[in-house]
């Protein structure tokens, strides 16, 4: 089947709408009679609620309702659903819709105000009086992990939600016999995905038809629909959840059953008026899940040639006050850490710890940045200690192209499946990267810079990324008599271009123009079985479902057209929106005509059609994840007097198998790199000792602007995955994953004279100068 669209950098179908301001984000949803909601949120990190006084708020003109936990029906008063259970997750604590007895983090919602406008609702918040008994807060991660720390959950003996070990081989033996062992501690601090669009929910209840419609800025509309159905006691068929245009997701919008996602629809049902809640930016910082804080103690055992004998890491993962989403992030850290290297003996052990801070769940990278940071820093350490070139030491340890599928020895990935890399060519990715960045020449270049008084470093970092995990996604394709093709898929879209990339797959299969393929995503009413957009899986899992459905529709089209054209299916071709007999372009019929013919008003349709219409629904359930890989390299200049850094060049070589739309892919990579740069040098959520979040605005939580992000040169290697028909691998998180490791690598190189060794992220100019000073005054390491 000839491909005309797959692989092309075609402009996106969705752009005209978005460019002209005709997108529909949740806040753009306008329903007659809408009321507006605001939440009274806990000002304390940990407190018992003694009394809530809402009378004054209720009396404010324009206020329609003030709701607290006691007003909620029992079904939604208690802890909200546990999402991803795991045997190690002994204490799977989850949040509530409205806190009635205890608050466990600043920002936890206590009361819901519904009023004629958001302005009035916020006025009413100020009239609510809550009496608290402030409790000691567990804030610092290490302190919270110790026995005797203030307990976030009173029914637990401590704050350890889970203790989980994954092993391969025999690390004890490996370390005991190793000629060299190097140890290091690594810290990555809290960050927020901070999409430009905050969260929001609009809910509308029709009491006559008993239909609940919810617009939700979520990455998982179908699953939200299922939870709402369950929690509100409604048939799934009566609940429709639409994720309209979403202004960026990046992970935290996949969290399900945020308190507001439940209380707002419930309020709409009770009040019988649409209710809208749009999170403001300050709310977002405390109410939408965070991620990133983990502390790793790691060690690597190598032989005299730098070959890895074993790697061991024990780490603490900060759950925040709850862990509804489960252990995905620390599991992914532990299973991403091995990376592209052969590690015969491995031990990853973590404790997931509750703290009195906002809950955490995956944010782009989802634990992979930590694994990569640890492993790549250890490799650089080995190189330095043994005097081996840092590229060479990696080459000596790479899994080789002929060694796939590569089994990591019994580790279990986030999908519950044994960790096996499907395909890859790490040496080639690495070679291209080093080539592009000019590594061979670097020593001389660096010396030249140095003579000019400039401190420039070259860094690189390699990663392997598990993508495209199950359980499944689906797609239904329908050709209408107009000839246009309608595609409904189960995943939502937050800017990744599914309206275009999926259309490209379909257009190829059916021989239509990509602009005649209209994709609907993120609407449980259009497609009701699916999981969501996360973990770099939409293109792989939904994309393959799209391909399977498209293939089925193609077959049906040939079948029906064969009848119309009185030809054999084998002799037919699809192109330019038509079906025609190969070699006889005159004997053709429009795709729309075939669709019409497949749905006759009267008569008989053949058994082999298996029903009317040019329509098919297919699912793709991958047996395991597909493993993408890549390497980033950069030149970074440091002003040692001010601690400011500047990227001189930034290179990415990326392998996600065949690429549907290179323009979209590069956009994903570049966007990820920008977030990674944020993680490395700008973005840090800072809590004080009382658990107050000090960074609640964009003045303090600093997102990189155009001035801070370099132009990124992107090149590709393609190793198809044998695990799915399209052979593709995911790419959504590729840009962000290795950036902290890369920045550390480059800074170590730039500041090699001082012996700087970066082991923490994020940095800042101030912290970098501190590190420099510490390195300058430290005794020379043995």
């Amino acid at each position: 089947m000839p491909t005309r669209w797959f692989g092309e950098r075609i402009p996106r179908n969705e752009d005209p709408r978005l460019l002209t301001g005709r997108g529909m984000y949740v806040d753009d949803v306008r329903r007659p009679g809408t009321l507006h909601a605001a939440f009274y949120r806990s000002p304390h990190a940990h407190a018992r609620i003694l009394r809530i006084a809402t009378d004054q708020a209720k009396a404010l003109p324009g206020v329609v309702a003030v709701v607290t936990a006691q007003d909620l029906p029992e079904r939604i008063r208690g802890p909200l659903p546990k999402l991803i259970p795991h045997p190690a997750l002994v204490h799977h604590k989850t949040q509530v819709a409205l806190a009635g007895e205890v608050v466990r983090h600043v920002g936890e919602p206590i009361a819901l105000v519904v009023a004629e406008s958001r302005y009035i609702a916020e006025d009413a918040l100020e009239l609510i009086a809550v009496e608290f008994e402030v409790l000691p807060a567990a804030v610092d991660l290490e302190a919270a992990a110790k026995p005797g720390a203030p307990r976030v959950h009173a029914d637990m003996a401590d704050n350890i939600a889970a203790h989980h070990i994954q092993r391969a081989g025999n690390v004890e033996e490996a370390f005991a016999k190793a000629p060299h062992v190097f140890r290091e501690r690594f810290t990555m601090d809290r960050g927020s995905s901070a999409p430009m669009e905050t969260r929001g929910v609009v809910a509308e209840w029709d009491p006559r038809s008993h239909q609940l419609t919810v617009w939700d800025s979520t990455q998982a509309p179908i699953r939200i629909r299922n939870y709402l159905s369950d929690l509100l006691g409604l048939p799934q068929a009566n609940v429709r959840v639409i994720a309209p245009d979403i202004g960026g997701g990046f992970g935290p919008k996949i969290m399900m059953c945020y308190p507001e996602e439940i209380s707002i629809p419930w309020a709409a049902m009770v009040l019988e008026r649409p209710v809208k809640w749009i999170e403001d930016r300050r709310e977002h910082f405390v109410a939408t899940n965070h991620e990133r804080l983990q502390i790793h103690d790691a060690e690597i055992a190598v032989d005299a040639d730098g070959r890895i004998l074993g790697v061991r890491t024990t780490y603490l993962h900060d759950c925040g006050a709850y862990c509804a989403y489960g252990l995905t992030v620390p599991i992914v850290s532990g299973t991403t850490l091995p990376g592209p290297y052969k590690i015969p003996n491995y031990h990853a052990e973590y404790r997931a710890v509750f703290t009195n801070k906002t809950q955490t769940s995956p944010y782009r990278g989802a634990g992979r940045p930590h694994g990569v940071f640890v492993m790549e820093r250890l490799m650089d350490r080995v190189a330095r200690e043994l005097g081996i070139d840092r590229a060479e030491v990696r080459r000596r340890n790479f899994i080789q192209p002929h060694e796939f599928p590569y089994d990591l020895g019994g580790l279990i990935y986030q999908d519950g499946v044994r960790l096996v890399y499907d395909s890859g060519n790490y040496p080639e990715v690495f070679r291209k990267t080093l080539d592009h960045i000019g590594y061979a020449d670097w020593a001389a270049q660096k010396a030249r810079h140095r003579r000019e008084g400039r401190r420039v470093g070259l860094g690189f970092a390699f990663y392997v990324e598990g993508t495209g995990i199950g359980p499944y996604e689906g797609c239904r394709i329908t050709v209408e008599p107009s000839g246009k093709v309608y595609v409904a898929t189960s995943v939502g879209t937050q800017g990744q271009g599914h309206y275009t990339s999926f259309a490209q797959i379909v257009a190829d299969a059916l021989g239509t123009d990509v602009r005649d393929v209209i994709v609907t995503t993120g609407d449980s009413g259009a497609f009701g079985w699916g999981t969501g957009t996360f973990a770099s899986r939409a293109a792989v899992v939904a994309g393959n479902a799209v391909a399977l459905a498209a293939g089925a529709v193609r077959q049906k089209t040939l079948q029906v057209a064969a009848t119309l054209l009185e030809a054999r299916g084998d002799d037919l071709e699809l192109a330019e929106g038509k079906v025609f007999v190969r070699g006889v372009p005159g004997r053709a019929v429009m795709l729309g005509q075939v669709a019409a013919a497949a749905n006759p008003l009267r008569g008989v349709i053949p058994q082999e059609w298996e029903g009317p219409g040019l329509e098919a629904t297919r699912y793709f359930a991958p047996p395991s994840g597909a493993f993408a890989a890549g390497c980033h390299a950069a030149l970074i200049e440091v002003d040692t007097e001010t601690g400011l850094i500047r990227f001189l060049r930034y290179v990415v070589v990326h392998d996600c198998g065949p690429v549907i739309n290179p323009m979209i892919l590069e956009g994903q990579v570049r966007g990820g790199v920008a977030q990674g740069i944020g993680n490395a040098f700008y973005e840090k959520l800072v809590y004080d000792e009382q658990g107050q979040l000090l960074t609640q605005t964009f003045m303090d939580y600093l997102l990189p602007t155009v001035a801070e992000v370099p132009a990124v040169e992107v090149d590709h290697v393609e190793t198809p995955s044998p695990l799915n028909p399209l052979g593709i691998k995911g790419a959504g998180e590729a840009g962000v994953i290795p950036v902290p490791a890369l920045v550390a690598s480059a800074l170590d190189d730039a500041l090699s004279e001082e012996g700087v060794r970066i082991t923490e992220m994020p940095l800042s100019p101030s912290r970098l100068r501190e590190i420099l000073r510490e390195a300058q005054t430290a005794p020379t390491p043995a």
Partner: protein
Amino acid sequence: MKPAPFRYVAPRSVDETLALLAEHGAEGKILAGGQSLVPLLNMRLARPQVIVDINGIRSLAYIRRKDDHLHVGALTRQRAVEESATVRRQVPLLGEAIRFVGHPQIRTRGTVGGSLAHADPSAELPAVAAALDAELVVRSPSGERALSPGEFFAGYLTTALEPTEVLTEIRFPVLPERTGTAFVEVARRHGDFALVGVAAVVRRSDGTIAEARLAFTGVGPGPVRARGAEGRLAGSAGTSRVFADAAREAAARLDPESDIHATAQYRRDVAATLARRALELAWQRSGGRSR
């Protein structure tokens, strides 16, 4: 993030503004560019009962030379200052510093007077005013007074402005020939408030520093003049060594705070670096050559 209720009035003259402020006193707040005030209103960190919008008083926006000062109306938009060839020529320190104030979209609305009256400890214009010993003209019902920066800046986000007073004009001295100026700053990102900023003025007499001024931002509750270092610079030779020593001395006397963005130590160290760089630049621009 919606502001708390307030009432709004838009006077057409300074007299009317003063009368309104007299009427509403501490409950009233002047709204100029709004780039600093409105975020505070939206976050309900400021809750004035009455907003007095002076953006309609066009007579308060001007840039005019009078004797040896450039008079800048308080309501002059930062963007106008940025684009003014007059400012670039006659008060180059102001022209240089204004480009560090936020972003173009901020400067479209932000005003010179507003930035000074807001007195953010990390803002650029207070340091410029301090380095130049600009006069800040304040009008009250009882008349007009011209304050020095030392008199005007009273602490963290605090000025000597009474609730019933309006800053109407800032008079920047046009410096004599053979005077060079420089504004340098370090910020986390381009356009952010300064972690540390320095405004330097150096007047040259052949190879000697006749007079020097050094004002810092980001290292105290308001702009800080390094008078000790200034005293030592006066009469010294214009050499790199002299500038470095003066910068170090100036920085050593600073008492900055630590916050989530930078430690006090960092601010002090970078203050020394930037002061040195600013002095060198100012010296070069005065026509001097570095030795």
